């Protein structure tokens, strides 16, 4: 099963200064990873254009985390390759991937507990400012904090923030890398409706302000429907389908995978 070419679906206009479709994309081609004899990810092809918000959904164990680890350099793929804006990313270490322009957040928040809010952002900012050639412009740390509404809390210890703001700080920290592509790993986990509503606006604002492609991994289908322009469904390590949120979420195969999984969960 291969990905549909992105021209088939409704790709939104990229923000100014960025041209989608002329090689500015995070291109995942035929990626496979086996653990022992089991494929965690099998022949996955996917592309996230610059300035696009792409959703990645799938039941537990579908291979979402493995895919993220392959993109960020944490794991080495057995076959296939990841290309970012024409640059082959295979073989780069985690810090090299980050400096090359892939920012990420974590499923379970991983802030630097012993540092304050500003220093958390500063860590990413300094690595990016030192090693960057080209790529999006770096924002000043305080500018970044104020855009994220964190400036008044800049001197607080990161882990003393309320949960929602810790998630926000994690995103701010990833943005300090001036990433070309931002990977959000279950950003709405543990949030109430009002908070995830705010998060939808925030993610869209980030895309508009920073012009980066955003890959959102989520369980929450309502959230995905509201925030994403395209959605890819991962099932048993393979791409089941890619398309607009409406098309994908009404796809009988997707419903089967999800409802099936849900009823199994209920039974268990």
């Amino acid at each position, binding site marked *: 099963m291969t990905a549909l070419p992105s021209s088939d679906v409704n790709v939104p206009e990229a923000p100014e200064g960025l041209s989608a479709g002329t090689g500015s994309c995070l291109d995942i081609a035929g990626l496979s990873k086996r653990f022992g004899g089991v494929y965690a990810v099998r022949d996955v092809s996917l592309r996230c254009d610059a300035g696009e918000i792409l959703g990645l959904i799938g039941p537990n164990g579908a291979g979402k985390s493995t895919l993220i680890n392959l993109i960020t350099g944490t794991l080495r793929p057995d076959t296939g390759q990841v290309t970012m804006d024409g640059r082959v990313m295979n073989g780069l*270490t*985690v*810090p090299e991937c980050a400096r090359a322009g892939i920012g990420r957040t974590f499923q379970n928040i991983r802030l630097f507990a012993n540092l304050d809010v500003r220093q958390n952002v500063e*860590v990413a900012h*300094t690595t990016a400012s030192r090693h960057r050639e080209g790529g999006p412009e770096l924002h000043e740390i305080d500018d970044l904090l104020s855009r994220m509404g964190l400036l008044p809390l800049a001197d607080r210890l990161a882990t003393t923030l309320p949960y929602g703001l810790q998630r926000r700080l994690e995103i701010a920290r990833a943005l300090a890398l001036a990433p070309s592509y931002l990977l959000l790993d279950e950003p709405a986990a543990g949030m109430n409706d009002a908070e995830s509503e705010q998060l939808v606006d925030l993610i869209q604002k980030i895309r508009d302000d920073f012009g980066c492609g955003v890959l959102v991994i989520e369980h929450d289908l309502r959230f995905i429907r509201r925030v994403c322009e395209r959605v890819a469904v991962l099932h048993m390590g393979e791409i089941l389908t890619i398309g607009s949120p409406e098309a994908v979420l009404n796809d009988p195969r997707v419903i089967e995978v999800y409802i099936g999984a849900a009823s199994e969960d209920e039974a268990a």
Partner: protein
Amino acid sequence: MNTIAFAERTRGSRPFLDARLAGNLRGSLWLVLIAAAIGLFVMAFGSPFIIRLTATAFINLIAVVGLQIFMGNSNVVNIGHAGFMALGAYFTAIFATPVMIKASMIPNAPFGLAGVEVGALYAFLISVALTSLIGLLTGLVLVRLAGIAATILTISILVIVQGVLVTWTDLFRGAQAFFGIPKVVGLGLIIVATAAVLVVARMFKGSRLGVQLRASATDPLAAEAMGVDVKRLRLIAWVLGSAVVGCAGALYALYAGTINARAFYFHTAFLTLAMAIVGGMRSVTGAMVGVALLTVLLELIRILEGGITVLGIAFPEMLGLSGLMLGVIIVAVMCFRSDGFMGGHEIEEVFAMLRRRLVAGKREG
């Protein structure tokens, strides 16, 4: 109100790098002022015994600061630093000791070192350079390990260094004391060196690299995902720490004139480690507080150890009490302030917190 004013100030003037440098310099200045004040006070008014005690305490402080640079910022427990102290002391001894004395002490020294004699300053510099080099070589292995494995490697380094010193009798005189080192260093020079080392450690901690390393100490995975090259930073801190610890050993050799390999083994390793832990190893101020607290406490206990009479009650001799108390102190600190006395804060941060609390108190009142 306050936060808005603050926001405008920082955004308006955009002095981020300068603000950092100024903050680090201010922090360093506090440390230097306090250390120098204590040192100069003792130099002016102290008895020879107190002066000797203070000189040893300052040398310990340099070693503890060296320990803090690596351990405090990277959160990897290091027990090998006493080995680097030994190396610093012995390299200095070998280069600085007069040829005449060496002719009787180590006549068969390899590489013609029996015939080499340089000024104390050059011996000091050569010694620190060689210690750093060994720090680099061991560091290349060390940074590949994490957590407890890294700590075990540091213990191995200590044991290997001790083994080499004791068995390579042609060069290090084995278990016998190495004497005749020119005693050119007094408390004054030790204070100067301590001040320099305090500045180095404080500047490193507050530098971009220091902040990155401290980030990786809490979460190496997240740090790498933010582009931090954790291994490289650990290596830098390890080599810098080794150099500073080697500096402590070199100063000790030039101060005492006689050194013995056994003085740089587990006892020293644990004493300095205890100082770092008690004071709070995450801050340079903590290193200073730890050294001061333990030096004074252990000295008081030593008086008690000899048996004293208080209010007509004669206490018996209690040999070994200081060793016991060292354990008790560490347990007590771990129970009540697991992050050490300073809890990872620097002195200027404590002042700032007090000021904030005062202001808040006034507003309420």
